[in-house]
Structure formats: C-alpha cells, structure tokens
C-alpha cells in the first residue's frame, strides 16, 4: 500500500515545501533494504494508522486535510502506550525525511576526494569455482584486514572473503548519504536485538567492515580491561597488547582531533564540561586531515578517515592478498577424518551458479561478533555451549539540547569530543552528531510538532553516551543472525545516570531545553525537571541503540567457558583462528577498533610463530 498518507500525516505535509512529497518514494527505498520483519512492521503500522483514520473520519489518511490529520494524530498521541511504537515508526521516516530535506537545501560542496590506495578486489562472480590459498580470511573488517595483512606479509597466499562490496571514497562523495546507508549496513541498519529492552544494533557490511561506517574514534584498550582479560579470563595475548596497539595506531595514523573542524556540537560539549570542571577532550581519531563532513557513518566522502580499506587492506594487497567481494561464506570446509582430529580445509562461498570453494589449511574467522557464531554453526563448528553467548554491546542512548543560536551539528566532526568524567562508573559520553535522521536520537512529536522540530533541528546539539555492560546477549541462528539481549539491572541504572549527566552537560553549556528522548516527557527545561523525569522513568522508555558487539566466540583459558583458546584458536578443530570482535573475552569499555586490530595482530602473529 502507499505510504503517502502516513508520511503526509506524520510530517504534517501542508504543501508549503516540496521535499515532503518526495519522502514516500525515499521511504520505499529505505524499506527495501531492511529485513522482512522490519518492512512488514512499518507497512502494518501504516495500514493500522490508515484504518484508524477511516474509523474516525470515514476516509483514509491520504484523503484528509491537514487539520483533520492533526486531529487523528492527536487521538493517537493521547494514548501513552502507543508512543514507543510510533517512535519506532518514525525512525525510517525521519531517515527518509532528513535526506530529502538535506537534498532540498543542496548537498554540501565537496572538495576533491583523495585517491584511494589500490586494492586487489575481485567480484565473487569472476572468481574461479575452485582455487587454493594458504589462508582464507572471512571478513574484511578491523580484525580480518589486520589478520590478512599479517599473514600476507609473512608470505602466505591470502584470500579475503567479504560479503559486502567495495566502495571508493569517490563513490562516497558522489552520492547522498542515505543511498550509501542502505548499502553499507547489514539489514539496512535495522539489526535489532530482541529482549526486555529492544536495541538497534547497526553493523557495517562492506570491504572494510564496520570501520567504513564507524565514527573513527580510536581508544586504546584500557589497562584495567587488559588486566581482566589476561588474569581473569586467561586470554594470555592481552599481556602483549601495548605493542600491537602501537602498531594499530601507527597504521591508522591516530591523532587527537584538531579543533579547527571540530564543529559547534563538540565545542558545546567542551564548553559544558569546562564549566562543570569535567574531564573532556577532543577524541583521538584515525582521520588525519578530517574536513568535518560529518558523514563518518555512511563512509567518509573525503578519504580522511583511515578505515581499514584505506590503511590496512592496501598493505595486505601489496603483500599479495586478494579480496573477493560479494562473497557470503556458506560454510567453513572441514576435513573430519584428519589424523589428530578435524581440520579446516577452506571455505565454500554462496553464488547463484552453485558457489565456489577455496581450499586452504588456515581459515581465519573475522565475520564480526554477530556474523561469526552463525557461520561456525553453519560449518558444524558450533558445538561449544558458550558459542554465541557472552555478547557484550555498548548500550547507548542520546540526548539533545536546544540552544538559542544555530548549532548546525552536522557541520563538523561527527564524533568529536569524549567526556570521560564518568568513565570509571562505566559511562562514556561522546559528542556525536549525524546527518539529519541518521542518528539514534529520535525527534519528539508527530504531525505539526514533529515538523517544527525538523525545521528547528539546526539549533540542536546532540550527545551520546555508551555504557560498559555486563555480557547479557546471545547470538542465535544459523543462516540468519538472531540477537537476544537482556539489559542488566545495573546497566539500566547506568543508562539513566548517563542521561542525567548528558543533560547536566547540556544545561551547563547553555541549553534552553533538553530533549530527553523519553516519549512521555520529551522536553525538560532544568536539571530539577530532568531529575524528576528520570526518577519516574525506566531504561525501557529510553531510545536505546547499541554498538560494538563483542565476545561471542570468546578466547580464554577455560575450555568449558571459552570457545577459543588463549591464543585465539577455535577449540575442537585445527586450523581455525578467530580474529575479530567476537574473540574479545569481555566488554572493552571503549570504541573497540584498536582493540580488535590488536587482538587480530596478536592472534595471527602467535599463529605464525608456532
């Protein structure tokens, strides 16, 4: 059915602007990239809304006038139980609306893009049906790229299998953010973890993995985390992480973000922290020469962000590694009858003509914390009872502050400033702004109210906070990833404290009001109000998203608890290394790209030294 009525009602399309008329078509393309349940859900909601309008007025939404639509929506908003559902419906709609509105204003002028260093990429369709290699690396993200480079430099013939496609910096600069969004994310960005509190968990899918779409923030693994990994879990390689973190930082050219292009959003965070006396600073990022395009999450259009496809994979290809794109691995091939136990023999990749196979004595699993457990299950390697469990994510929520002066948060660095005042309590606040509609912050209201928020979005500054969680998730599924995540009571408290801290920061920076993201009480104008609201709020009412899934094929000493041994080798089979976020035995408590790269370096080097 047509989404026109839904869009017209929610965005209060009164015909005064051109862009809302184009939103339904854009929404259709957004939905097309999403998994079936999400698609069906949005369409069902649209039908429900239409049916409600018919019941109230005898006509569908599309046939109503503006004021009639407002009155229909007002009837819905009066029911508090419906608010969270309506907010979910707003997410894809705002994504489409934000894009069309930005296109209306004209795409920002772009400077000349840098030329990407060369990669040896081959499409899966052009790859021979039968081939051999010394090592197959499944996944080309932070872990896979690092593993491929280490192995290729050691002289091994390496083939990297990547489900996504290769996107060049030039192609990022050419197209609007939303078109890239649908291609660069698994499930169109709508990966959802079900549980007591549903979480949106976006994961990248491209040559370069999630590093193509992350914010570029590079934290070294904190020492206390490394100590816990090595002493409590027996992940012995963590002891030598310092050297590998240095190497990863060198490769990614990590440096503190200069203030020149930081953007107003970050400066507000710095100012607020300064007034409160909190510890805050521009983040260390892997984007030398960043021009503040604020499009990290859909691929850097200037080539400044050193995602692994610009930094690590070119080195790997120079050493002889080859990348096969569009290659979804069906299963790892296992020789079950080898003397000494089963041994990995290569990988089988899906293709319409029956697939292709690569034989290799070493298989490196780097399909990400959400992809690796289903892959191992498909390969009959999923027998360990803890495989897929121990999923840590960084549950996150965001808060916006309205300022008197325009902030234009989307001009500047996307994730610019880290506020570490509460990091000891497991809360890390990062000033994060996104292109319109792409952030995890959902503007409040429906109809005219939402439209006014959209029009005034340039005066909003947004902060995000992620918390160090207790591993409460599971990756289920064999052919498709299914996520279950139950937020621990302790972590729910942390989230509410994080909202309070962000509100405090925004008020200190001079915000007129703070948008809480809580559907029932979306706006507060003082800390007292905020405390009152939070006292009556549970974490379930927050808009939660989650980032940085880790730990689903954890490495550790205890064979009962950890599917991989202390050197990152999968238990129960020879010749399989796990070198991605899933191998990290516990929550890294910071943005994990450096930790993943260091782990992949340590694991592959340990393998080569054997």
């Amino acid at each position, binding site marked *: 059915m047509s989404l026109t009525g839904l869009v017209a009602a929610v965005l209060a399309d009164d015909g005064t602007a051109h862009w809302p008329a184009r939103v339904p078509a854009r929404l259709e393309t957004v939905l097309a990239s999403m998994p079936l349940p999400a698609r069906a859900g949005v369409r069902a909601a649209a039908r429900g809304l239409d049916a409600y309008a018919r019941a109230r007025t005898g006509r569908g939404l599309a046939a109503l006038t503006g004021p009639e639509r407002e009155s229909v929506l007002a009837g819905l908003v009066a029911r508090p139980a419906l608010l969270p559902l309506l907010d979910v419906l707003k997410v894809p709609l705002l994504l489409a609306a934000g894009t069309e509105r930005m296109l209306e204003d004209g795409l920002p002028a772009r400077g000349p893009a840098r030329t990407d260093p060369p990669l040896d990429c081959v499409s899966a369709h052009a790859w*021979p*049906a*039968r*081939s*051999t290699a010394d090592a197959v690396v499944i996944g080309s993200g932070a872990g896979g790229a690092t593993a491929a480079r280490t192995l290729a430099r050691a002289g091994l013939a390496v083939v990297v299998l990547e489900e996504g496609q290769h996107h060049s910096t030039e192609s990022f600069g050419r197209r609007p953010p939303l078109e890239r969004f649908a291609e660069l994310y698994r499930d169109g960005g709508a990966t959802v973890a079900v549980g007591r509190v549903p979480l949106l968990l976006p994961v990248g899918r491209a040559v370069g993995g999630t590093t193509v779409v992350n914010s570029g923030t590079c934290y070294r693994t904190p020492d206390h985390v490394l100590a816990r990994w090595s002493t409590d879990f027996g992940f012995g390689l963590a002891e030598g992480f310092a050297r590998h973190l240095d190497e990863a930082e060198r490769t990614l050219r990590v440096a503190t973000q200069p203030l020149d292009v930081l953007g107003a959003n970050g400066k507000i965070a710095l100012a607020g922290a300064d007034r409160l006396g909190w510890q805050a600073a521009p983040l260390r990022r892997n984007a030398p020469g960043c021009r503040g395009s604020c499009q990290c999450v859909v691929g850097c259009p200037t080539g400044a962000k050193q995602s692994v496809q610009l930094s690590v994979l070119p080195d790997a290809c120079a050493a002889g590694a080859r990348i096969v794109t569009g290659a979804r691995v069906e299963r790892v*091939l*296992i*020789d*079950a*009858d080898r003397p000494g136990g089963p041994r990995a*023999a290569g990988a*089988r990749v899906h293709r319409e003509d029956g697939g*292709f*196979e690569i*034989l290799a004595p070493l298989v490196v699993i780097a399909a990400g914390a959400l992809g690796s457990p289903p892959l191992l299950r498909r390969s009959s390697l999923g027998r360990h009872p803890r495989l897929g469990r121990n999923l840590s994510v960084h549950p996150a929520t965001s808060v916006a502050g309205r300022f008197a002066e325009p902030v234009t948060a989307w001009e500047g660095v996307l994730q610019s400033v880290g506020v570490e005042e509460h990091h000891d309590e497991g809360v890390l606040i990062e000033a994060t702004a996104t292109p319109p509609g792409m952030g995890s912050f959902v503007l409040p209201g429906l109809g005219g109210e939402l439209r006014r928020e959209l029009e005034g979005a340039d005066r909003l500054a947004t902060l995000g906070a992620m918390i160090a969680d207790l591993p409460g998730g599971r990756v289920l599924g064999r052919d498709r990833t299914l996520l279950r995540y139950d937020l621990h009571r302790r972590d729910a408290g942390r989230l509410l404290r994080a909202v309070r801290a962000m509100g405090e920061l925004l008020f200190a920076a001079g915000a007129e009001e703070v948008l809480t993201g809580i559907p029932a009480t979306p706006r507060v104008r003082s800390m007292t109000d905020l405390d009152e609201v939070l006292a009556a709020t549970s974490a379930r009412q927050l808009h939660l998203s989650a980032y940085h899934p880790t730990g689903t094929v954890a490495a550790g000493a205890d064979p009962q608890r950890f599917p991989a041994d202390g050197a990152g080798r999968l238990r129960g089979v020879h010749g399989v290394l796990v070198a991605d976020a899933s191998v990290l035995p516990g929550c890294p408590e910071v943005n994990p790209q450096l930790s993943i790269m260091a782990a992949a370096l340590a694991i592959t080097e340990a393998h080569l030294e054997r």
Partner: protein
Amino acid sequence: MSTRPVPGASGTTPARGTVFREAMLGTLRLDEEDRTRPIRLDLTVSADRVMRPTGTTDARATGRIRIAGWADDPDAHGELEISPLARRRIRYRIAFTADGRRVTLDGWKSVTPRSPVASMTVLPYTLYEDGAPIGTGTLRFPLTTQLVPFLASFRFPRRENPGALLAPRWQGERGRTEVWYTTLTDPATGSGLWLHHELTAPADGSEPYAHGWAAVFPKDGPVRHARFGPAPWTATEAGFRADGITVEPGRLTGEADGGTLRWKLTERPMAEPLFTFPRWSWRRPLLPAAQMLPAARALYDGTFTHDDTTLTLTAAPGASARIYGHGNARRWAWLHADLGGGDVLEIVAAVSMRPGLRRLPPLVFLRLRRGGRTWPRRSERAAVGWAGAGRFRAAIGLPTWTVTGRTGLRRIRVEVTQPADRILALDYTDPDGAHAICRNTERADAHVLLERWWFGGWRTEREWTLDGTAHAEVGTR
C-alpha cells in the same frame, strides 16, 4: 607346511588395492581467450588400498587429456583424493603438457547430499601454469554413456611387493631347491642374458649349498657361460647372497669364472606379480614345485661384461622368476615372451617326477598378461581343464615345441623354436642327486596366435611373432 607370513599380506601393506577407469567431458576457458574449448579426460585411477567410502583414499591417476586445438597428452598423470563422505570432496590434480607448456589441472567435486548426482559428477577445475591460474572450466561425468563402463572397470587387485617376493622360502627342510633366475634381452645388441641363482638342500640332509651360473647369448657369436659356487648358504632377508653374488630387490650383482663374467644390474619392476602356477601353490607348497614372477615385466639397466666385451644395458626388457619345490620336473618346457606394449606370455609345461603323476601328459600352466589382465583367469583351467577335459596341451620337443589351448571364446597356439646354435645345454642336479639336462636359449623365436570365436568361426584377435627375443628352455632326463 610353511607358517611364514604370506608375502604382500603383512600388516603394513593393504592386501588389495583399487583400480578403476573414468572418463569425463567438459569445457575449458583459457584466461587469454574469449571462447571455450571442449576437453576430455580419460583416467585410470589406482589406489594402494580398497577404497573406503566413509574415509579418505589417496590414489594415483594416469591417463590421457585432450583439449581441442591445444593439448593431447597421453601421459597425463597426477593424484586423486577420494573422500565423498568424510571430506565431501573428490579432488583431482593432473599434470600434463599442452602446447609445450607444463600445466596442472586442479579441481574437485564437492559432494553434497542435497544434489548427490550433480555433485558427484560435476568437476569444476582451474588450470595452473607455474602456480598461476591460466584458465577455468568444468568437466562432467556423462552418466548415460559412462556409468556402466565406469562401474565395470572397478578392480580390487592384490597388492604385492615385488621385493618381498624375492625373500627366500626355504626354512631348513631337506630335499628342496629354490631358484632366483633372471632373463633379459638387450635391445641394442640383440643379446640375451641369463642369470641363475640356486639354493639346493640335498635330500640326504647334508649341508645346503648355493650355486648358479651366468650366460650370455650374443647375436653373432657362440654362447658364453660360467658357473659359480657351490658356496655355503647364508640366509638373508632380501633374496640370494652367496660367494659375492647377490639378488636383492632392484639389484643384481656378481661375477663368475674369476671375474671374466661380471654383472651389475638394476631392476625396475614394471608390472604386477604373475603367478604361473596357481597362487595357492606358491603360498602353500603342495605341488612338487611352483614358479612365479615377482614382476611380470621388468626393465634392467647396468653393465654385463664377458671376456673383453661389455654390454651396457638401458631399459632392457626381461623378468626375474622364482622357483621353489622339491626339484626339477621329469620333462619340462618354459617360455617367457615379452610381447611388447606391456603384454607378457609365460608358459611352464611340465611332467612331474612323482610316481603316478609322471605318467600324465605335461601340465600346461599358461599365463597371458594382456592390457593388465591375465588370461586364463585361473591357471588351473589351462593345466587340468575340467577333470582333464579341455586342458591345454603341449608337444615338447626340439628345436620346436608347441602349446595349444582353448577356454571360453578364445584359443591360443604358441610355437617356440630354439635353434640348436643358440642353445646352452646345462646339467641340473636335483636335491636327491638325480640329474636332468636343460637346453636353454634367451634368443628363441616364438609365434603366438590368439583367436576369438565369433558367430561361426575363429577370427584372429592378436598375433605376435618374436624373432630371437623369446626366452625358452626345454628340460629332459
């Protein structure tokens, strides 16, 4: 009865192997071309063990590969990894020459229960030159035309180690004789060679002794021979060793007549063992004697010096044979004929010394190894027929003796001529002291006619004529 382990049936070597033939058709696209070429692969696959469907069997493959307009290599060879269930893979790696380039075909069938037939018959592959891929393609096993020949080609031949069959059989019994003898033809000069090594354990219980002789049959000159021994017998695991003369797997060395005859030869077995007498009679010595060839064909390299002449042998065809028993027959004829192309004819026709048996006509043990298969299937068939009816017959005489016989739809006639001027007559002594005379030549002529019955008449199937390259002897008392 001997209780020693049967050669070739020890724990380390599987008793039987697997041999089958497979033909596949398909296409090849070379990277440098924009068209596909038809390709055909015919393979003979042999494994050292009976194929295990649930495990992994490594096998060798030889055969012919034809690629339209690019390659026709009858000497393609490589290896197979046959593991349809354990590894779900049947991998082919075949090296061949195409257009002067050394190329390797590497591919595997990927077996899946979802499409068992397609996955067992489709072989995608990649071609490599110096490790770099140069083309890809797919071979298919054509079920309609090839399934029956494929299934019918399966054989599970015994695996025998030619070296193990050289080990001495004698274990101290009285009245036994054991022989290692080698005959060969030098293709360069046409000369024949005969090396005879014998262990005799006299029936009276006196000390066993080793002795023998070497003989050369030059094409244009008199036969020259020299005896060695008798020398005390010293047991050895490998074969025969006495008086500085050795027979061991792959090697024959020695000298006789004060060094005027010297030989130093290497032996390359080129075929499976050939049991001229029934196999059971070699394993359990129930017959008066039995003869067999550890390898039906062998090639010899090295030197043989007699007087001032040195023969330098390069891939000289011949065979080594073994005899173990109570002594020589009353009357016998023997032929070893290398028919070329890997085919071999071996005949022993003999009359026993045993009372009663000596009244019988000669028992003919005839083995024709053709295309890797031996006819008649059982040597008893030729020797005794159906209680005597239909047995093969021999007319032993000199200079010409003949053997004729028929089984199934085939019949054979062999005529051997040993001209008097090429003969070496030697005196044999049995363990019981009896004497026999053997008239031997390694430059005999032979004519072999193999016919097949076909709707009302006999048609010639093959005919071989050997001119001075057959090895034969006739023994009398």
